[in-house]
């Protein structure tokens, strides 16, 4: 078991004939992902690497019973691609595209919220259920099947965290990159809810960063509802105020969105917070140990809460 996707998911790739769309389709397929269709308007009828390409998502669904979309459509058409996925009644759309204008996303998000389709992203690495289904641009080899759920606003920092988890023997049930944009589909809490109900997830690792208040909201939800141990890391403890650190969302303005406030709130709500990005795996280990559910081999390492020097 897992959340969002598994080996039975039937994937349609929107924007499959683009350069990165095709490259990542091939990578995902090599991992074992069941990609059943592609969509590129105007190119319906061709096959690319043996995958049938359709003009619309609706057609793709009709002929291949696809139920999940992976979106690589470039920014000007990406919001439309999300709307089309919702209109076709898919269960899930994962939008990898980076750089979608906010105004377009306001509209797309409003429609998507009222549809039956869940949205992950945009501007995210995607979703992976190790050993079953990889939907996105993350490197498959760092993941191991297991029981830790991972949810993150970041891309490559998630890879760092996953590698640390895998290295100490903590495999993952599903890893969800929710994206770094100001407007995204699923938020921390939406993903935490699914992990909370998933019988094969024993614990959750959460990766946040400066800006906004999503981590604080998640912390309060965890205190009230979460039945499983949670560990976290927040990037940007040393980030200066008023400077946008890459992501559109990652900025401390008017004293809001500081890492230290997020860390304090998470700690107060019973989350084990890694004090350094070098000890994310250890923090998860510690949270599992404290909850008495430690299924993992114990490779003794310094406690995550203590400063190195």
């Amino acid at each position, binding site marked *: 078991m897992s959340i969002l996707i598994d080996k039975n998911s039937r994937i349609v790739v929107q924007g499959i004939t683009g350069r*990165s769309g095709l490259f990542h389709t091939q*990578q995902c397929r090599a991992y074992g992902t069941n990609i059943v269709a592609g969509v590129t308007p105007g190119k319906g009828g061709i096959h690319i690497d043996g995958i049938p390409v359709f003009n619309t998502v609706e057609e793709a669904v009709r002929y291949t019973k696809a139920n999940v979309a992976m979106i690589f459509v470039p*920014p*000007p058409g990406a919001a439309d691609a999300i709307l089309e996925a919702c209109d076709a009644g898919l269960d899930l759309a994962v939008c990898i595209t*980076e*750089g*979608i*204008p*906010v*105004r377009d*996303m*306001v*509209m797309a*998000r*409003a429609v998507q*919220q009222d549809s039956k389709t869940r949205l992950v992203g945009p501007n995210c*690495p995607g979703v992976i259920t190790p050993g079953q289904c990889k939907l996105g*641009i993350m*490197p498959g*080899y*760092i993941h191991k099947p297991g029981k830790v759920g991972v949810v*993150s*606003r*970041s*891309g*490559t*920092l998630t*890879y*760092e965290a996953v*590698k640390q988890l895998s290295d100490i023997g903590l495999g993952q049930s599903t890893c969800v990159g929710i994206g*770094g944009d*100001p*407007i995204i589909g699923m938020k921390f809490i939406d993903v935490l809810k699914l992990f909370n109900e998933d019988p094969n997830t024993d614990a959750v690792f959460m*990766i946040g*960063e*400066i800006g*906004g*208040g*999503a981590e604080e909201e998640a912390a309060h939800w965890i205190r009230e509802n979460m039945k499983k141990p949670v560990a976290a*890391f927040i*990037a*940007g*403890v*040393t*980030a*200066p105020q*008023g*400077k*946008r*650190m*890459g*992501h*559109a969302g*990652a900025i401390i303005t008017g004293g809001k969105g500081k890492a230290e406030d997020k860390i304090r709130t998470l700690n107060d709500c019973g989350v084990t917070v890694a004090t*350094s*990005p*070098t000890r994310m795996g250890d923090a998860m280990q510690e949270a599992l140990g404290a909850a008495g559910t430690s299924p993992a081999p114990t490779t003794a390492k310094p406690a995550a809460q203590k*400063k*190195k*020097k």
Partner: protein
Amino acid sequence: MNIHEYQAKEILNGFGIPIPRSRVALTADQVERAAKEMGGHCVIKAQIYAGGRGKAGGVKIVHHPEQANDVAKELFGKKLVTIQTGPEGLKVRRILIEEAVEIAREFYVSITLDRESSRYCLIASAEGGVEIEEVARKSPEKIHMLTIDPFTGLRPYQARKIALALGLTGVVCEDCVELLLNLYKCCLERDCFLVEINPLVVTKAGWLLAMDAKMSFDDNAVYRHREYPDMVDYSQLDPLEITAGKYDLAYIKLTGSIGCMVNGAGLAMATLDVLKEFGGEPANFLDVGGGATREKVAEAFKIILEDSDVKAVFVNIFGGIMRCDVIAQGIIEAASEVKCTLPIVVRMDGSHVEEGKKLLKESGLNVQIGENLGDGAAKIVKMLGQGG
């Protein structure tokens, strides 16, 4: 993307929002002439990419043209340090001269993106002319907020509720309704992240005027507005940040001596955090993008080395499906081209990582390999002799 106050006001005026009579000047003589036109009594406003100008001496009232000239001479070329600029300040190169207005009341209005609801949000307060964060903290009941439905847009009745809540009545109230509707129209059509009028004033004669305005555009939507790139005042930006922007790299100059190159914003922030933890001081934030390419790595390397504060370079690339040997090749090429002799520590992860490490070791550069994030940070700090 930010623009100056005078540019924001011109755009607002294009949407039918009234602004004071004004002129922009680049020299003290121009300022004096403009002041004469206004009848001598006017406001001199330094144009910089930051707020808090008033308290920093960037806004002055003058009473005759010669005085305007004196004030302008003092302001031009001066580095204004406000609460938003940081200690280095921003140089004044443009001045806005505005007619002095007799103000009866001051308000705050803005439209910005609310992440929680994923919608645009109208914010208004009868406490204008001061910092809105301050008002929000001290007396949150004085702030009126309205989330705008993207399908209906802002409706006149909603704008009227806000105008009434601000205490406006009669003709001015209806003027305010129209102004708010136009503000929303401007926000959408110009792809704004934020449009703010603070203060919005009612003059003693009973007219609404946007006395100060701030506008920032959604970087992702700049491609829809051909005029935007020409509106940027490059003198207000760090030259290295401008170069980085050309290559689609996110670069921010910091105060330390360790140049950093990382792929991905989250990992880049975490890398700065680790360096500090080990006692090092990062010289910059640089995100080469999640899928770092050889060309981008090479350009990023050159930008880092152009900063003379940099005494060592830390590269942290979690390539994933990017090939590490390709990344290594990019680093070697760039370093050789600029004849870099500084100590470099490279931490790489991804496919072909052993080939990548081998290339670096055989390159003849002053380079060490970090086995993981902590090891890399420790090595660079040690090579530089920083830390404890």
